[in-house]
Every structure is written in structure tokens, then in C-alpha cells.
């Protein structure tokens, strides 16, 4: 949650676990600080805070020095002292008026799954309106259609699978059109569900000959399932069958015994359990904790022709994501996005997904607060990892300039700037190393990483 830290809070530091050290767990700490995290009462107050935070950071670039100063005099005294020699009032007004959007009425496409939570909830909970936009969120029939409608400019921006903007920019499965990702929609939030009859086949080594469904070829679902199978010695191209199936049909196919399991976005997983046709074999976070799932994407053309609209849109999404990242808001969000206009699913299902207290399909109730989580920062190392997998499974042939593609598509720098303006604390770097099933990925050496896999298609 480091992204959403409050830089004004002198009690926060970068230690792991509970941030202040006074609570047993991070959850408990959040409970205690929940009051302070609540949204401010008015727009002016929020802008004031943002500007003051920016000034504060400029005056004390060193975190330690700033904290020491705040601790010694207290935040309100510090602000009062600050306004003596800096026109905070004027600066706030300037900030609030900055960049009126070129185009206010926008259309954003989404696929009805919980991954689209920030995009969807921003409409009923008023995040678009708050940033001066009038956005229609339009439900779309499938990933290929959402791609075509965004390319055709029917949509100004859209919910896409995290690898899709990379694929479109590279011209895989479509004409090459430069796309960009200013924000990751959600992290984690997928799962492997097996048909109830496979209750005893929990070891993937026994899965030879089974049929699995994934939603789209250029998806984290595809890469994670392939990765998981390959780590267990199953060649996803030879030993099992992987089929591209639209998510709602996955549940029906599982019921009809046409497939043995699927790796799908979350409310579909929970729906299969809710309907009593399958069980949760494992959450995708157990493969890679904190992996990106879906992204918020727009074409480069839209960004250059309407930069202020794009910035306002990104702010609204980042704002909504910050709201969604808090556990105490999740129930309200589940109710807001469940109606037919949005996801069109039973509230119980969405609540189980978003709160992380869920029935596992085997008779047990499990709790994992991070089952779905939200952090908008578009790490460029995520993009590099996806490119290695595209190459691993033969979707990209030949040499790839990993870094160049990642930096062109994943707009970490711009997002960092926007987040700083909003008073959030984005990470300093754009690349981070992470572990997928215990294997560490070093974004600086993608080719070495790729060479380390025994099962792969790439030559």
C-alpha cells in the first residue's frame, strides 16, 4: 500500500509489516488509522492538502529531515509557518483550475468482471464527475470487440487485459497502433478453478490430457496458467488443451463437463463455486503475489489530442483505485457495481471476491484480504515480464527491445507525476524485481530469465 501513503503523516515509515510498529498487523494498523484516511470533506481542502504537500516535499526533499521537522513542531504549526512565506492559497487555486479537459463527454469500455472495478465504480460513486468529466461506461461483449472499438475511436479509453496494449502496440493480433497504459486496474484477482469431480487431483502433474479455458491469448490468465503448468512439468502446448473461451461460457462449460478447469478473472471463479460446479484450486496470487491483471488503456492519439481529458481520466481512475484499495470500502463497492447496468452479478459473489472472505467450493470458508487488490502504478518491469512470456510462448518472434516497448506503453513517469500532484506517494523507480513461484525476475536481464525456462516454445 506504499503508493497511497500520506507524506504528511510523520508516523509512517518504510518498515515492513505495521507501518507505525504499534499494532500487531498491518490490518489492525489500518483499522486504527482508517479515520485519518477518510476522504476530506471538500475539494478545496483536498487541493490545499495536495499543494501543501508538494511545497513541503520541495522544501524538505529528504524524507528523514521532513519527518523530523514535522515531529518537532507538529503538522498544523508547520503548515501555518509555511503559509507565512509561500502563497498557499493562490497556489491551490491555480492547481484546482489547471488544465480544463478538452473533451468532457467520454466513453470508456469495460468487460463485466471485477477486474474493471475502478473503471466501473468511478461512475456510480462519482469519481469521474469529481474530476470534471462526464463518462459513460459501456459494457462490451469481448476482448477482441473492446480492442476494435477502442482502435475505431468509439471508446476514448478502455479496460484491457494488462498485456493487450503491449500486443496492440506491437501489432500482434491487430494492426500496430501505439497504445499506452497510465494505470493498472487491479492486481491479483484471478484463480484456477477445477470441476468438482477433480477434487482429488490437486497435483498438476496429474493434469495431462485435461482441457482448460482462458479468456484471451494476450492475457495474464494465459501466461500465468502456462507458467504454472510448465513449472510442474506439463507442456501447455502438448500435454493439455488450452482454449480461448469467454468467461460466462466457462461456468456453463464446466457444468456441462466440456472443460476440466479454467484460469479466469475472479467473479467468474467465485460464480462457478456459487453455482456449485467447481472449486478453487488456487488463487493466482499464490503464483505471483501482486501480479497485474487488467489495465486501463488509451491510444497515443487520444493522449496527444486530449491531454487534459486523459490526465483527468487517469486522476479519476487513480483516485477510484485508491478508494478501492481500502478494505473497509469493499462492501460498498460490491453493492455499487453489482446491478445490471454494471457487472450484473449477485452481490454475494462480488462481496466474496472483493472482501476476500469466500467459500472455496470444498466446504470451507477462506479469508484472504489481498485476493483482489488495487494499486494503479504501471510498473515497467511488469511489461518486461509479459514480453518475456510472449516470446516464451512464440507470440513474438525474433529480438525484442524489452525496455523500449515497456517504456513506450507503460506510462510510469507520467503516472508518477500525476500521483505526486494528487498528493499520493508513487514509488521512485519504474522497475522492480519480483518473484513468480519462487523464481526471482530481474527486469534488467530478460533474456537470461527467458533462457532459464526448460519448457518453452521460443527458439
Amino acid at each position, binding site marked *: 500500500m506504499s503508493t497511497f501513503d500520506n507524506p504528511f503523516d510523520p508516523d509512517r515509515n518504510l518498515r515492513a509489516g505495521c507501518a507505525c510498529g504499534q499494532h500487531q498487523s498491518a490490518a489492525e494498523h489500518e483499522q486504527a488509522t482508517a479515520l485519518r484516511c477518510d476522504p476530506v470533506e471538500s475539494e478545496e481542502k483536498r487541493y490545499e492538502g495536495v499543494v501543501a504537500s508538494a511545497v513541503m516535499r520541495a522544501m524538505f526533499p529528504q524524507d528523514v529531515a521532513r519527518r523530523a521537522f514535522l515531529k518537532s513542531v507538529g503538522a498544523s504549526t508547520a503548515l501555518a509557518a509555511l503559509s507565512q512565506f509561500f502563497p498557499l492559497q493562490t497556489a491551490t487555486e491555480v492547481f484546482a483550475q489547471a488544465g480544463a479537459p478538452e473533451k468532457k463527454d467520454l466513453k470508456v469500455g469495460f468487460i*463485466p468482471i471485477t477486474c474493471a472495478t475502478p473503471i466501473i465504480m468511478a*461512475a456510480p460513486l462519482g469519481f469521474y464527475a469529481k474530476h470534471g468529466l462526464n463518462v*459513460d*461506461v*459501456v*459494457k*462490451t*461483449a469481448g476482448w477482441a*470487440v473492446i480492442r*476494435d*472499438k477502442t482502435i*475505431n*475511436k*468509439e471508446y476514448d479509453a478502455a479496460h484491457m487485459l494488462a498485456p493487450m496494449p503491449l500486443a496492440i502496440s506491437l501489432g500482434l493480433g491487430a494492426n500496430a497502433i501505439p497504445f499506452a497504459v497510465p494505470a493498472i486496474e487491479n492486481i491479483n484477482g484471478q484463480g484456477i478453478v477445477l470441476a468438482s469431480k477433480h477434487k482429488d487431483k490437486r497435483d498438476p502433474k496429474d493434469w495431462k490430457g485435461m482441457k482448460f479455458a482462458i479468456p484471451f491469448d494476450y492475457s495474464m490468465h494465459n501466461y500465468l496458467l502456462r507458467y504454472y503448468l510448465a513449472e510442474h512439468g506439463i507442456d501447455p502446448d502438448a500435454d493439455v488443451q488450452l482454449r480461448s473461451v469467454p*468467461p*460466462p*461460457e466457462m*461456468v*456453463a462449460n464446466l*457444468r456441462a463437463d466440456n472443460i476440466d478447469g479454467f484460469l479466469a478473472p475472479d467473479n467468474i471463479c467465485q*460464480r462457478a*463455486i*456459487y*453455482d*456449485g460446479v467447481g472449486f478453487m484450486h488456487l488463487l493466482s496470487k499464490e503464483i505471483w503475489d501482486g501480479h497485474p491483471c487488467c489495465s486501463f488503456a488509451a491510444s497515443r492519439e487520444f493522449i496527444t489530442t486530449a491531454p487534459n481529458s486523459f490526465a483527468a481520466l487517469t486522476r479519476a481512475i487513480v483516485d477510484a483505485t485508491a478508494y478501492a484499495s481500502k478494505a473497509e470500502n469493499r462492501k460498498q463497492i460490491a453493492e455499487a457495481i453489482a*446491478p*445490471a*447496468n*454494471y457487472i*450484473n*452479478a*449477485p452481490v*454475494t459473489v462480488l462481496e*466474496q471476491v472483493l472482501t476476500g*472472505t*469466500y*467459500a472455496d467450493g470444498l*466446504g*470451507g*470458508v477462506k479469508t484472504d484480504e489481498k485476493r483482489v487488490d488495487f494499486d494503479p502504478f504501471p510498473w515497467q518491469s511488469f511489461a518486461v515480464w509479459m514480453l518475456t512470456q510472449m516470446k516464451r510462448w512464440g507470440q513474438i518472434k525474433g529480438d525484442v527491445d524489452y525496455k523500449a516497448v515497456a517504456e513506450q506503453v507503460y506510462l510510469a513517469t507520467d503516472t508518477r507525476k500525476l500521483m505526486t500532484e494528487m498528493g499520493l506517494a508513487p514509488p521512485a523507480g519504474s522497475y522492480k524485481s519480483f518473484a513468480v513461484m519462487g523464481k526471482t525476475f530481474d527486469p534488467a536481464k530478460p533474456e537470461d530469465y527467458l533462457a532459464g525456462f526448460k519448457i518453452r516454445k521460443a527458439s
Partner: protein
Amino acid sequence: MTSSLRVRAGLVSIVLLVAFLGVWHLAVRSTAPVATMSPEYAKLMGLTATQGKSAMPGPLDVGAKLWEHVRRPFYDNGPNDKGLGIQLGYSIARVGAGYLLAVLVAIPLGFLIGMSPLLSKALDPFIQVLKPISPLAWMPLALYTIKDSSISAIFVIFICSIWPMLLNTVFGVASVRKEWINVARTLEVGTIRRAFTVILPAAAPTILTGMRISIGIAWLVIVAAEMLVGGTGIGYFVWNEWNNLSITNVIIAILLIGVVGMLLDQILARFTRMVTFPE
């Protein structure tokens, strides 16, 4: 006698309907044994899992849901949730637009081809190749080139409903009785006048039969097209409810699609009767 036949047929229809509903109702009763589960777990599960309720809805569920829809057919809760009346309206408007375009193209063109043996032979291979193409095969191409999903849907309706009309018009025009044309020729009637006063009335029943086949095809296609592009329309409604795995609503949509299709067909049938003449 006729009226008694009608009454008897009506009675048989009702008996069949009742029998069908009865079998349906019995077939989807909950029969599966209810698994034992902790109450905490049961709260998180759906009725199928907890009460052994069949995944298929029964006629009573469908009836109740249908009543709900019929009571408020025109509500509008934003871009993705509109009443069934509005959805059907969108579909009918799309079918109407595509179909009218097809009429405007197919009938004059069919006339031309029917009156000229040369054109008829020359265009035949094209028509034969284009005619059997499935409507949905056109969809990606349309979406890609037209770059507008709603016009693409109209285009697909157009391209699919044009062939029966064209072929029937050609056939109708080409098979007007030679004697009538010869009489017109003897009376030195001009080509245009001959087309409107002799050929058109003679070919009208065949042309309208083609139009009747076309409207049926157009209505078949719109559901599939809207399922693919989404947005609005009865096809979108089916897709949206399928997404929600709500079979009840899918059944209601199927019922309504059938009723509207029948009405459209009846309208064209009435027109056909109007232009039919005894020989």
C-alpha cells in the same frame, strides 16, 4: 364447420401448451440431494448448491420474471441497463434500417437483372458466391472497415437480407408471362411504362415473397449481431443475461424474439395477400 375446426385446433393448442409447461415444471424440480454444509458456508453459496435447486428455471420462475419485465418495459438505468421494450425498439430500428436499404437496392437491381438476360448471366456467379455467406462472417470485416459498431450491425442486416429479395425479384420479373409482354409490345407501350404497368404487378407476389423471407433472415441475424457487438438491442440483452448466467431472462428473451419475428412475418404476409391476384 370451419369455426368448429378452429375451436378444436385452439383446444388442442392449449392442451399441448399445458402439457409442455407441466413437463417442464416437473423436469426442473429440485431433485438433487442437499449436501450438508455449515451455515456460514451455505450463506456464501447459491440456491443450486444449497437447496439443490435446478440450474434450469421452471415455468413459474419465468412467468414471474416476465411479468416484472412487462410491467416496466421502458425503464432506463444508464447505458447498459434498459427495459426490454427499449431493447426490442433498438433491434427493430436496426432491422428496419438494414432491411429498407436492402429493399432499395435489391428490387431495382433485381428488375434490371430480370429484364436483361445478359446481366442475369454476368452477375450470377457473384450472387451465387455471396449468397451463402453466414451473416456473422461479415461482422469482423464490417467492424474493421466501417469502424462503427451500430452501422456495422445495420450493414450485416443489409447484406444478409438482400439476397432472397434480389433472387425472387429476378425470378418474378423473368417469369412474367410472355403473352402479356407481347401484348404490351403490340400496343407499343414504352419500356418504363411496361415495367410499371405490366411487369411490376405481375411480379409483385414473388417479390413480396422474397421480402418476407428476407425479414425473417434479418430478424434472425440481428440477435447474433448484437450479441457480438454489444451495446443495445435484444441480442445484447441475451448476452448480458448470459453473462449473469440468468437462464430465466434468456428464456424470456427467446420468447419475445419469437413473438416479434412472428409479427414481422405476419405484416409481410398481409402485404403479400394484398398484391396477389387470381389468374
